[in-house]
């Protein structure tokens, strides 16, 4: 197949490896099935449908594919969690609730290459034995929902979907389900509740692990859009071959979404671990703005812990360890975890030295306070509390105890909630306060008196003036 040509000005970076985004920004490309088939589309479904379902799962396991939604859990292993003696229907859900601030990859797949997702989904359905699949798409993607609906109709007309997929006897339907604008619906059990028509309160795990007790209490596999697309490519090249892309344990390609203070923000599909943070920022993204210094990076969506530019990180090197700087961190799951953060959803948020870290944290806090579902106590009460503290600090009403209080409120949330939202809302505060204490202290001295104080902040400041 000839190398695709891309729209002028939107060409991939030379070091990108476009697998999932192969057709994104392609010249002459449209989301129709004709275009997709003309480019060799649905060939992998034809191949997969002739395989044993278990063999597909084995290929996915062999590929080492890790979930691209945020947690980085091995996809094949997840599929293997369906109870072996299961007699209930199995559901597959595509999590297209892409809501993590800083993340904007799935929308391009949906908008520009919906058939890649559908092909990946039908293959995955066949592998896990799901006859019904849902695409849970966030409310804010109305156009995407429409495109998917049309693509599903096209695929059904061509027998890639429906009662008898490609004459194999395997039947599979995909339904698009639109959310109503809640971040928590990206949490898989919250998503399932929402899909069932309920308030998206995440379920406790145990016992409600989706692979055993998911949608309608049946085994359910929830995968991210990007992850499901990778399945198609795993079938194309074989699990073992796929696993050679990227680095060991961190295989394949992934799409990094870079936003913030860089010259060329955008999406870049790279081999996992083959590109460092420095290369990404300076080479791919053209560096931070002129005259500015890199100050901090949130490497995996807004909930990932912030990395400070002048920090030193100890990572594994062969049998030993080595100390590296932020620019040397390879963009993979394991190193990012070793550096105390996470690769998450691939949303890389870059901040230069013009940014006030208290302002940044307040921005993040506002998001999580607004999005907490409110089901369980620590996150419900703590997320808004943290936001109120940073609000007050920015308004000039900070008091010395605020820094400690912020950290301890976050500590009282993380690890104590029903779902991972607890960590998502606590990690920013924990890391910002720990890594930039001087910036927060700045907001707690009353030297900031020039700024207008709200009545509330004034009272608080007065009340603790002596302490």
């Amino acid at each position, binding site marked *: 197949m000839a190398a695709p040509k891309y729209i002028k000005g939107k060409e991939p970076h030379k070091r990108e490896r476009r697998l999932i985004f192969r057709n994104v920004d392609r010249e002459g490309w449209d989301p129709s099935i004709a275009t997709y088939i003309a480019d060799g589309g649905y060939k992998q479904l034809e191949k997969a449908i002739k395989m044993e379902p278990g063999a597909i799962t084995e290929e996915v396991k062999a590929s080492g594919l890790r979930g691209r939604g945020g947690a980085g859990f091995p996809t094949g292993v997840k599929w293997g969690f369906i109870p072996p003696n299961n007699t209930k229907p199995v559901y597959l859900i595509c999590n297209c609730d892409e809501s993590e601030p800083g993340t904007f990859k799935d929308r391009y797949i949906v908008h520009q290459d919906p058939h890649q997702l559908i092909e990946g989904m039908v293959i995955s359905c066949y592998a896990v034995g799901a006859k019904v699949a849902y695409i849970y798409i966030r409310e804010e993607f109305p156009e995407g929902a429409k495109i998917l609906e049309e693509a599903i109709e096209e695929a059904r007309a061509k027998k890639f979907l429906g009662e008898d997929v490609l004459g194999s006897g395997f039947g599979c339907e995909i339904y698009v389900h639109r959310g109503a604008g*809640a971040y928590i619906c990206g949490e898989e059990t919250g998503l399932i509740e929402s899909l069932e028509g309920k*308030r998206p*309160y995440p379920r*406790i795990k*145990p*016992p409600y692990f989706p692979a055993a007790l998911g949608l309608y209490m049946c085994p359910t596999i929830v995968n991210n859009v990007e992850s499901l697309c990778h399945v198609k490519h795993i079938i194309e090249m074989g699990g073992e071959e796929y696993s050679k892309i990227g680095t060991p344990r961190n295989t394949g390609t992934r799409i990094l979404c870079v936003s913030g203070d860089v010259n060329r923000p955008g999406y870049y599909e790279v081999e996992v671990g083959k590109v460092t943070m420095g290369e990404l920022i300076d080479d791919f993204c053209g560096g931070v703005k002129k005259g500015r210094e890199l100050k901090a990076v949130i490497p995996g969506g807004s909930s990932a812990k912030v990395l400070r530019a002048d920090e030193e990180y100890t990572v594994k090197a062969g049998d030993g360890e080595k100390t590296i700087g932020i620019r040397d961190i390879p963009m993979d799951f394991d190193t990012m975890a070793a550096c105390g953060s996470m690769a998450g959803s691939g949303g890389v948020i870059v901040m230069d030295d013009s940014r006030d870290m208290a302002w940044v944290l307040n921005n993040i806090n506002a998001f999580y*306070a*607004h*999005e*907490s*579902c*409110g*089901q*369980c*106590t*620590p996150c*419900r*009460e*703590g*997320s*808004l*509390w943290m936001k*109120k*503290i940073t609000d*007050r600090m920015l308004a000039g009403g900070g*008091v010395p*105890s605020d820094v400690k*209080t912020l950290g301890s409120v976050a*500590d*009282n949330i993380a*690890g*104590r*909630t*029903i779902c991972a939202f607890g960590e998502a809302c606590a990690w920013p505060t924990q890391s910002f306060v720990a890594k930039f204490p001087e910036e927060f202290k700045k907001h707690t001295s009353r030297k900031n008196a020039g700024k207008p104080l709200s009545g*509330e902040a004034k*009272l*608080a400041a007065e*009340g*603790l003036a002596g302490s």
Partner: protein
Amino acid sequence: MSEEATVNVQVDGTWIQVPKGTRMIEACKQAAAEVPHYCYHPKLTSPGNCRMCLVEMGMPPRPAPGEEPELDKDGHAKIGWMPRPVIACANTVAEGMGIRTDSPLTRECREGVMEFLLINHPLDCPICDQAGECTLQEYSVEHGKGESRFLENKVKKPKSVEIGPRIRLDDERCVLCSRCVRFTREVVDDDVLGFVDRGSHNVLTVHPDRPLANNYSLNTVDICPVGALTSEDFRFQMRVWFMRETESICTGCARGCNTLIGSREGKIYRQTPRENNDVNSAWMCDEGRLGFHYLNSDARLTEPLVKDGAGHRPIDWPEAIRRAAEGLAKYRGGGLAVVASGRMTNEELYLARTLAETLGAAAVDIVKREGEGDGYLVHADKNPNTAGARAVLKLRSPGSKLKAIKKGIEDGSIKALLVLGENLLKAGFEEGTLKNLKFLVSSHLLANPTAKLSHVVLPGAGFAEKRGSMVNATGRLQRLNKAVEPPGDAREDWETLQDLNRAVDGLDGVGEIADVFAEMAERVSAFKGMSLSKIGGGGVHLIDTDERVPLLEREAERVREGLIVG
């Protein structure tokens, strides 16, 4: 899951054995380590949302192949403690599990949750009805920090919202535990409550077109761990710590729901359900719960009355008994009948029976009181002691003799009538019929037309004003206890009946209600071997019936499915 299978669990350093499948929180309870909680309720599903029951948990690490697990000094595999706390309410125990309910991590978790729950709480205990029985207060003392770090404005939420005819909601006090939501959904199939909005602005609310009006709505007030849901009937009436609690049973129907009567200085303020898994689980209907107000009614009879010309005048008890006994004794041997009540206790019924036997009454019966059951707890039989009456009065078909009694009065064969606690004008008798009687004596709680026609009127005691026993629809013998004194000179009916017995047979009868029961147990086979003191708080099964309690059956099913603890 085999019931016999047990696992070894270490709670705060002590090893105990509990059945497999036991929830961690229940295992801790068995080890006398109470784990604080808000959302968990054994009768409801466990959403695990309050996070108050977080505890430190550990399991023995899986030994490497070929290696033996490391043992502690008690011979149990050494526990590897997990860094993350887990909820004790929804997780079940496993072999070798360790639980720490008092470790630094556990204490830190509780302190954190308490702080979170209080930052936006209005702290209005001085005007809150829940004060004194509020878990937020209690846990605050036990697990709270004691001071607040919260410098911000609190979240404002709706106050004093009428969510149903009997319930008022204060959203600012609500800890969003969802017990009420789950109760209405899971137990009474009336899914009208829910949460709206998000995060810290979450509020409990009721469906806009469907108020919380079901007949079990007040149970939500009981299970609300805080003062968010209050009873329109009880709110602002009495501080809970001033009230005396008396274990009793509801006499609104044949279910006999177990209750606690809250009273102070001779006045009843509320009735709440008392758990009994053989009768009413932990619930009762609103109708029964609120069915005590008539005891405080102005229409209560407070002294014996005797007919004097067109009206009645008060007389003292000895005179009233003398007149009643003489009037009845005149028609000894078939000239009189007794209409008793299915609302009477077994002891009262027994004394009515002996009286009828001594006087040779032509007939003894009770008035039937049929209504509708609801498939939950409410029974179609509105008499609380029909089963007792059947046994004590040897009635095959309660109420079937009333027609003959009525006919007897009309044809003049029955000249005297003793009526106990029933208004006959509501039981198929006409005023003209009763006027035919030469002598009518009746006992009542409230003034009514039958009393008005009576030659002697004896004031009685309500269900909460006396001791005694009843048998419910499933044949369970249960006890009434005295919460308050009857008003004025009114007295317990068994005493009145005992006095009447003495007056007509001239013998010295027994003097204590326990003795009445003992005598009854000798003479009525169903009560054989029983005594009043043997009945105990939860009652005893006495008579086999094929009655089932729909609500209990559903609950048992949910226990089997592992959804609830029960």
